[in-house]
């Protein structure tokens, strides 16, 4: 193992900002910022649909704001082929729906609440993701 491209300061700062988003949504609306659930509900549930939709709109506005304020071009690179991207999207959709959450819902909100379910889920998806990268990377 070699450690490369490590950016602890910007990562930690970005994490604190994400944590602020989580607590605002929680204290204000009483909900957990689990993004797979929010996106899924926007699609299939009438309950809180406007709130869910606006959260999703905000997610897209965030990077636009950031670029506008800092004039920094966000580094972004996808090297996967289209068939891989489509398969991965399907697996992420199916997996987060069946597993009740993703990196935000289980990884951040769930761990912060010391939920054993979420801690287990996070360990599992980290392991299968690391194995996947090892196999196809």
């Amino acid at each position: 193992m070699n450690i490369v491209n490590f950016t602890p300061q910007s990562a930690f700062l970005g994490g604190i900002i994400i944590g602020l988003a989580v607590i605002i949504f929680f204290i204000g609306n009483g909900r957990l910022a689990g993004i797979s659930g929010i996106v899924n509900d926007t699609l299939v549930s009438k309950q809180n649909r406007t709130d869910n939709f606006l959260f999703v709109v905000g997610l897209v506005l965030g990077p636009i704001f950031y670029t506008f304020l800092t004039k920094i071009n966000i580094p972004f690179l996808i090297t996967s082929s289209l068939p891989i991207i489509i398969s991965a999207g399907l697996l992420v959709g199916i997996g987060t729906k069946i597993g009740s959450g993703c990196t935000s819902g289980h990884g951040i909100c769930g761990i912060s609440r010391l939920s054993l379910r979420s801690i287990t889920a996070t360990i599992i998806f980290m392991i299968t993701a690391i194995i996947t990268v090892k196999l196809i990377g």
Partner: protein
Amino acid sequence: MISRIISLTSGTIFGVGLSVSNMINPEKVLGFLDLFGQWDPSLIFVMLGAIIVSAPVFFLYRNKNKPLFADNFSISTLKSIDKNLIIGSGTFGIGWGMVGFCPGPAISSLALLNTYSVFFVLSMLGGFLLTKLLDRIIIPTQHT
């Protein structure tokens, strides 16, 4: 009305956090998942930063019964580590490792007008709908 503003604000701040940490970038996330190769531990610091901020709030609010702008807290009460949690999370991890996209960054990256992001998000929505369809037949699911 205020709950709408909270939702939009919270989503926007989340998107800024993904940009600052560059977790919006699949290449950066794949660097973290490449544990046995060229490893970039940054994602751990993102999670740490977020958890340090949110954990104390969840703790302080554990006995409160009402948020500021809604009638009640809607939080998952599921406790058991069941088959769905394990199979679902395992499946999600495979998809995450294939491209380096999880739901939040994928949605946020639509702002960067990359065609691949659009294909990923559409496929993810397809995955949600497919599961809902199958849900009625074989696998009852619940989510947070």
